[in-house]
């Protein structure tokens, strides 16, 4: 699993990521469970550690702005753009183009 930006949170992050992945592949994808209760404790512990690091580096303020920007994506279909782009795109294409 990938590292945390705060090395002091690495250990609890690793434990949480492992827990989440197990839940995701064994329960969530199989429709067995909607809530991720078994990892909630680890997640809270990880967040407690991470939030300090985000505050210290001033990233928390940047995140607030980004979340504000992202609000429309939560309610609407962001992938409309993609589907439109897809129609005019050959398979396995890779390109830089003008807007």
């Amino acid at each position, binding site marked *: 699993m*990938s590292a945390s930006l705060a090395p002091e949170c690495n250990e609890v992050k690793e434990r949480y990521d492992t827990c989440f992945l197990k839940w995701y592949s064994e329960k969530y994808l199989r429709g067995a469970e909607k809530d991720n209760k078994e990892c909630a404790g680890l997640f809270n512990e990880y967040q407690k550690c991470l939030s300090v690091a985000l505050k210290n580096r001033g990233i928390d303020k940047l995140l607030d702005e980004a979340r504000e920007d992202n609000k429309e994506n*939560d309610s609407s279909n962001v992938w409309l753009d*993609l589907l439109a782009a897809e129609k005019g795109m050959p398979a*396995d294409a890779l390109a830089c183009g003008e*807007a």
Partner: protein
Amino acid sequence: MKVFSNQVTYDYSWDEVSTANWRKYGPWNNKSEHVIAVDTLSRRVDPETGVLRTERLITCKQAAPDWIKSLLGGNMEESFVYEASYVDPQSKTVTMVSQNLTWSNLVRVQEEVVYKPLSDHQTQFIQSARITALCGGWQRIKNGIEDSLCTRFKENAVKGREGFERVLEMSRIVFAEEKERLQQQLM
């Protein structure tokens, strides 16, 4: 504004791809040195739709071209990306939307990624990014910044594909081993 677009077909099921996607930037990926950390900020399943919504913070370390460095100044070593993703297990769709948190007053990069099944054992990855330089001044400089970022996207996309193929391969091997171990325990 420049638009980067990319499509890849992976020969793995959507379940495998959507699971491996969570460890895309882990140690199995030897082609993503520019991503140094991935942190989960929030995670929740919508009780009505069953959609899993995750917010992540991605920390990158990638040297910018020298001429951009001298133009923008400051420490360009670390940059941050905010990502919101939505997994819909019903329609088997993963959608990820990302934007840059760093130098956001100079350039805006909005990326959208979708993973969806093509068949039971094939998954399509569709990526598009809109790159807009916001700094006032000469159009030539704006174009230069946009071109340079778009080229960077292209380079990263090639590496991203190679790296993710390896993650998928490793995930399948580990999953098979795990299954075998469980079966042996049951016997």
